[in-house]
C-alpha cells in the first residue's frame, strides 16, 4: 500500500498545478463534492442526455464530445438520500429548488446517472410542462369518463423509458404482470407476462399508450414494494403538474391538469404509498413566471411554485436548495475549461479574466457558462 502511495505522490508532484482530476469512478459511489465527474459518452447517449440536459449544456456536450459536470452539495445530498431508500420506507420525496440557473436540472441529471450506476429503474421526465402545455393531439379516454389522453407524449415517454432502462432491461423482462390488462377489445396483456410487453404494446399502439404508461407505473411500484428493484422518479418542473394547461375540452374551456391522464399517472407516482423508491422533483419558476413581465419577480420557493394544492400533495418532502457557485467551484470549472482549451482568448485565460468571469456572472452557473461560451 505504501509504495503505491509514494508513487501517487510523485505523480501528483509531477503534474502541472492546473492539472485536473476528473474522477472516472464508474462504480456505485458518488465522486467527492467539488470534483468534476464524467458521464461516459455511451452512457450519456443511453440516458438521452442530449434531450434532458439544459440546451447550453447539451450543445457543450456536442462540441467538447464529453459530459463533465461538477459534483456539488445538492447532488451529495440527493445521493445520501438515495442511499437510505429501503423497502421498509415509503418513497422518499425530494424537491430541488433554487434560483434560475443554479443547477436544478443538472443535479437531476446527475441523480439519474447515479441511479444508472446503482442499477435502479429510471423514470425520467424532461419537463412536466410538456404534459400540460405542449400537447399536440388529444383523445378522450375510454378507461375513465372525462379523462384526456395524450398519445404522442405517452409514446415518447415509453420510448424514453425503454431507452433509459436498457441497463436493467433483462431484469425488467423477468418481472411479471399482476393481472390481466384489457387495453381494447382485441388487445390484451395477460397476467404473468413480462412487464416489458406493456411497453412494447404502448409503443406500437399510440392510442393505448396513455393507459400503458399508467400500467407500467403501477407495475413498477408493485415490484419496488416487493424489493425486486429500486425506482428513481425524476421529474423536472414538477410543479407544472399543478399548473395551468393549454388543453381545450369540447366546450372550449381549458381542462384542469387533473383531467389529463399522464398528469394523473405522474401524480400517482409521486404519492408515497409505495416503498423502495425515490421521487426527485424540481420546482421551477418557469411555470408561474411571465416572460413579458419585466418588473415582477416571482418567488422560487416550493410553496409558491407548487401552490397550496400541490404542496399539500407532495408534503412531506426533503427540500434541497441549489445555490450559486462558491469561488472554489468557479475555479474548478475555469481550470477545466482552460485545460480543454475551451477558453480561447488570451484575456480570458489571464488572471484578470478569471476574476472578471467570476464576478460578471455573479457566481451564477448559467451565466458563467454563457460568458465562457464566447470567450
Amino acid at each position, binding site marked *: 500500500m505504501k509504495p503505491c502511495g509514494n508513487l501517487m505522490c510523485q505523480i501528483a508532484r509531477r503534474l502541472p498545478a492546473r492539472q485536473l482530476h476528473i474522477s472516472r469512478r464508474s462504480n456505485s459511489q458518488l465522486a467527492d463534492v467539488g470534483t468534476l465527474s464524467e458521464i461516459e459518452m455511451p452512457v450519456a447517449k443511453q440516458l438521452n442526455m442530449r434531450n434532458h440536459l439544459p440546451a447550453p449544456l447539451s450543445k457543450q456536450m456536442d462540441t467538447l464530445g464529453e459530459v463533465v459536470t461538477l459534483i456539488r452539495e445538492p447532488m451529495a445530498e440527493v445521493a445520501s438520500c438515495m442511499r437510505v431508500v429501503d423497502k421498509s420506507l415509503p418513497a422518499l420525496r425530494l424537491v430541488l429548488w433554487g434560483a434560475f440557473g443554479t443547477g436544478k436540472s443538472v443535479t437531476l441529471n446527475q441523480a439519474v446517472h447515479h441511479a444508472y450506476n446503482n442499477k435502479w429503474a429510471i423514470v425520467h421526465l424532461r419537463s412536466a410542462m410538456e404534459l400540460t402545455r405542449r400537447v399536440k393531439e388529444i383523445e378522450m379516454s375510454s378507461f375513465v369518463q372525462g379523462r384526456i389522453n395524450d398519445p404522442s407524449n405517452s409514446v415518447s415517454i415509453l420510448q424514453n423509458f425503454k431507452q433509459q432502462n436498457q441497463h436493467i432491461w433483462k431484469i425488467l423482462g423477468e418481472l411479471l404482470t399482476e393481472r390481466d390488462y384489457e387495453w381494447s377489445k382485441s388487445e390484451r396483456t395477460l397476467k404473468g407476462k413480462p412487464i416489458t410487453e406493456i411497453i412494447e404494446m404502448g409503443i406500437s399502439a399510440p392510442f393505448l399508450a396513455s393507459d400503458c404508461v399508467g400500467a407500467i407505473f403501477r407495475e413498477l411500484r408493485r415490484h419496488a414494494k416487493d424489493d425486486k428493484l429500486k425506482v428513481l422518479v425524476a421529474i423536472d418542473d414538477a410543479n407544472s403538474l399543478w399548473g395551468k394547461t393549454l388543453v381545450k375540452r369540447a366546450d372550449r374551456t381549458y381542462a384542469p391538469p387533473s383531467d389529463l391522464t399522464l398528469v394523473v399517472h405522474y401524480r400517482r407516482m409521486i404519492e408515497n404509498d409505495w416503498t423502495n423508491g425515490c421521487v426527485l422533483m424540481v420546482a421551477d419558476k418557469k411555470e408561474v413566471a411571465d416572460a413579458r413581465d419585466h418588473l415582477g419577480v416571482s418567488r422560487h420557493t416550493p410553496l409558491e411554485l407548487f401552490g397550496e394544492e400541490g404542496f399539500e400533495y407532495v408534503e412531506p418532502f426533503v427540500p434541497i436548495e441549489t445555490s450559486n457557485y462558491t469561488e472554489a467551484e468557479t475555479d474548478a470549472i475555469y481550470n477545466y475549461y482552460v485545460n480543454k482549451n475551451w477558453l480561447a482568448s488570451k484575456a480570458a485565460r489571464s488572471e484578470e479574466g478569471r476574476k472578471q468571469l467570476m464576478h460578471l456572472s455573479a457566481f451564477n452557473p448559467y451565466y458563467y457558462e454563457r460568458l465562457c461560451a*464566447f470567450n
Partner: protein
Amino acid sequence: MTTKLARFAQKRWISSTTSTSNMYDPRVFRDPVTNVQELRKPLDSDDERNFLFLKAMKSDATPVFYRDHVIDKLIRVCTKDGEKETSRKNVLSALEIIKRRQYKAWAKASEEEKKSIELDPFLVAKKGIKNCHPLMKLQGVTRGGTTYQVPFPIEEPEAEFRAMKMMRDICRVRSKHGETHFKDILATELLAASQNEGSTIQAKQELHKTCEANRAYAHYRA
C-alpha cells in the same frame, strides 16, 4: 403598458430631426474614465475632471476583459430600432457559433493542423472584418444635371464601417422571413471572410470593379 410606451418613444418615431441639445451641458460635463488601470492612478492636477461633473459611463464602455473596439462597432452597426441589447446578443452568439465550429475542427485536426486553426472568435471576427475593408467608395456627384458615381478614397474608420455595413446588409437579407437566424449567417460570413471567401468579400470585389470602371469620373471629385 408603460414599458411599451417607453420603447415606442425611445425609437424616436415622432421626431425626425437629430437631437440638438444633449442632456450633458458640454461646459460642465466631461467624459468618464473607463480604463481600470487609469482609474487607479490619481488624476493630473490640471485635469478638468477634478472640479467638473462626469458623464455616466456608456453601457458599451464597461471595463470588461472582452471589450473590443471592432466587436463593439459591429454591435452598433447591426443595431436595428435602437435595440442594442438584441444586437449584442446576436453578435456575441455569432462569436459563440464561430468558436464552436472552430473548436470542433480543432478537436478533429492532427497536431500540425491544430496550430493553423484560430480558436479565438474575436481574432477570427476581426480578421474577417479586416479582409472586407474596401479601398474606395462610390459617391454620387451631380454635374450638369446627371449624377455620376464617382470613386473616392476612404479613411480606415470609414472602410471598417463600410465593411461591417456590407456584411450586415447581406446577413439581413439572408435572415429575412426567418430563413436563417441572423447570428448563424453572421457567424458563417465572418468565418468565410476571415479566409477571404463569402458573399461580403464578393461584394467588396464588385465594388472595386465598379470603382475601376468609373475611374474616368475621378476628375469630378470636388
